[in-house]
């Protein structure tokens, strides 16, 4: 006689469980983890390391560890810690200088901007976008709890993160209800985030030349949001879901270190730069439609997300993943993603000197006419003779956009103000249950 704790799911087991779920989907038995008194609680450990690099720009290294514990009554508690180490450079928001410069021997060029944390930035060639060098470390803690209560499953989660100039505290609650023999699941939830921005060197006055400091306090930012969703099992193989969310952000929504260049109306040369300014309110909404289709062995995931906000940003994201089983406990999952957004109403690559200042302006590329295309693949495997499951995911991301606006002048018309950026990302993950 032997009594075994529920331990890691092997690949055979997970395929079998999936097959059982597919077959019984229309009968809807309790496909929740089995519980017998003798069960000791099961613990799962997930660890991952993300390495992300934008060519000539930011680099991120992010180790994450997550521990989950499943109790005999179906209750799950998990906690996660993640540390991001970010170094490199980010576009300052300014325009290319338009002039060749030679710095002092051994020094950098002359186009430099104040940095978030770290040194100044340079634009060594006339057509290059100026960048800000920075480095920061972010620590994030997350915890969540869920417990099935019959057809209802409440989930409560909390979040805290801190980096040099930013702190975030948040929480959310979600309730899922299974209906119609578990073929349909309806989910509703709400959450909040209370964040604070402490710009390094003080908060600059908006639309100023960065030298006017209006305060050394924190700048609060609040987010309140809600979501609703429905998922539906259509057949033994096919499940679709529609989720919508809406959130309201208020407070300090400005990027403290981003600037907007002012160019000469004739030559287009940069003659000055001012800090950006964004509205203190942003209403964001999105609708995510997804589909999971199980073939006999393989699985196809498709999703589309439409996003819009009252800043004028509209975006579409198309995502496709295909999980292909190579052999027992080895699979490969190619991934394609395309993202396209329209710029915010107040997005400008630069302003023309002498024109009246707009109420709001930003040249943050994330609010611009941004496109990204992602090609990647994940390989999942186990190592013979060792417990746990491994995965390695590698992705190539190309970020690009329309960089020839008609409102720029002179030399700026010759430049692509949204030059393509090549990005690579690698994630190694390990999962172990015991």
């Amino acid at each position: 006689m032997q009594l075994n704790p529920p331990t890691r799911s092997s690949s055979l087991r997970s395929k079998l469980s999936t097959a059982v779920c597919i077959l019984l989907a229309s009968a809807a038995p309790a496909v929740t983890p089995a519980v017998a008194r003798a069960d000791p609680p099961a613990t799962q450990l997930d660890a991952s390391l993300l390495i992300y690099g934008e060519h000539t720009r930011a680099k991120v290294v992010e180790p994450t560890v997550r521990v989950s514990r499943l109790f005999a009554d179906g209750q799950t508690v998990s906690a996660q810690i993640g540390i991001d180490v970010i170094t490199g450079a980010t576009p300052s928001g300014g325009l290319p200088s338009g002039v060749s410069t030679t710095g002092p021997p051994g020094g950098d060029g002359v186009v430099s901007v104040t940095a978030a944390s770290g040194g100044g930035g340079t634009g060594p060639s006339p057509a290059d976008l100026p960048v800000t060098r920075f480095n920061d470390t972010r620590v994030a803690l997350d915890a969540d709890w869920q417990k099935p209560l019959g057809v209802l499953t409440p989930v409560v989660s909390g979040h805290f993160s801190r980096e040099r100039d930013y702190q975030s505290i948040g929480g959310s609650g979600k309730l899922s209800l299974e209906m119609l023999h578990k073929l349909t699941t309806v989910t509703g939830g709400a959450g909040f985030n209370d964040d604070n921005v402490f710009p390094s060197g003080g908060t600059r006055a908006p639309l100023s030349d960065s030298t006017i400091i209006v305060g050394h306090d924190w700048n609060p930012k609040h987010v309140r949001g809600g979501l609703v969703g429905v998922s539906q099992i259509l057949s033994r193989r096919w499940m679709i879901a529609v989720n919508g969310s809406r959130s309201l952000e208020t407070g300090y929504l400005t990027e403290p270190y981003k600037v907007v260049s002012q160019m000469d109306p004739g030559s287009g040369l940069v003659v000055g730069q001012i800090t950006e300014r964004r509205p203190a309110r942003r209403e964001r909404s999105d609708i995510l439609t997804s589909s999971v289709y199980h073939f006999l062995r393989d699985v196809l995931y498709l999703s589309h997300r439409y996003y819009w906000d009252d800043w004028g940003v509209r975006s579409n994201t198309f995502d496709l993943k295909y999980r292909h089983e190579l052999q027992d406990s080895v699979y490969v999952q190619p991934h394609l993603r395309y993202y396209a957004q329209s710029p915010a109403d107040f997005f400008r690559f630069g302003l023309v000197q002498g024109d009246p200042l707009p109420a709001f302006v930003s040249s943050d590329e994330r609010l611009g006419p941004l496109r990204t295309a992602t090609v990647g693949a994940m390989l999942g495997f186990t190592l013979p003779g060792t417990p746990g499951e491994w995965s390695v995911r590698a992705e190539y991301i190309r970020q690009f956009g329309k960089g020839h606006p008609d409102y720029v002048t002179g030399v700026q018309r010759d430049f692509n103000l949204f030059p393509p950026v090549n990005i690579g990302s690698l994630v190694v993950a390990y999962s172990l249950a015991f």
Partner: protein
Amino acid sequence: MASPCEVLVDCDNRDVAECALRIARDEAFRIEAKFSRYRRDNIVHAINEARGEPVPVDEETAGLLDYAATCHEISGGLFDITSGVLRRVWTFDGGDRVPPEGAVREALRHVGWHRVRWADRVIGMPEGMEIDLGAIGKEYAVDRAAGLIAAEVHEPFLVNFGGDLVASGSRRRQRPWGVGIDDPRRPGEAALYRIELHRGGLATSGDARRFVLHRGKRLGHILDPRTGWPVQDAPRSITVLTATCLESGTLSTLAYLKGAGAREFLVEQGAQFWIL
């Protein structure tokens, strides 16, 4: 189901209990009528008598065949719903009659899911082959019945079809369901072990009741589709607990088919199990 079946409902209302019982009985009879290989008026009979002709099947049958195909694949061919042909040459009556090797070899020519054409809800088998959904039918019926009862009855219940069972949740006041595991040496007489089950499916595979004696060795009724012979050196009784009766039943059958490797297999799968 050719075995004792019961439904336990923890409640004070007789009508509720009878409602659960009625649902389980109707579902059991429905599944038996549709998938029993002993009947001549169902889809299994139509498939087995098609003499090589393709047979289109309904959604539910397709689901079971897909499931069987997956089990065949993930078990490397050990789990095979076409192995029933072998039973014609074996008699498991507790006696010592072993078929001649030629008969086993001949029967093996008609065994192997890989010889079956199964696509787009149409199945085609070479003449002489047969499918038998007995290895999954009972567990499937348990989970199906439990799903149907759960939609109508909101009291805790347990469905037990011939020893393969599922519990919907803890009994009242968080008490567990007590489930005994038969002593494989004295089947039906004594429970060797008591499991306190709150929720999930339990299924047992073993050779307690049906076996044949060969050279002093006891050979159980579960046949290895690769050799045509009963699986050797398997534990007498393997009980598995997972979320569903079907998964437990499939895992215990796969474990039994591994013979002496049963325990190692179940440890690898991370399943909770009892080997007696």
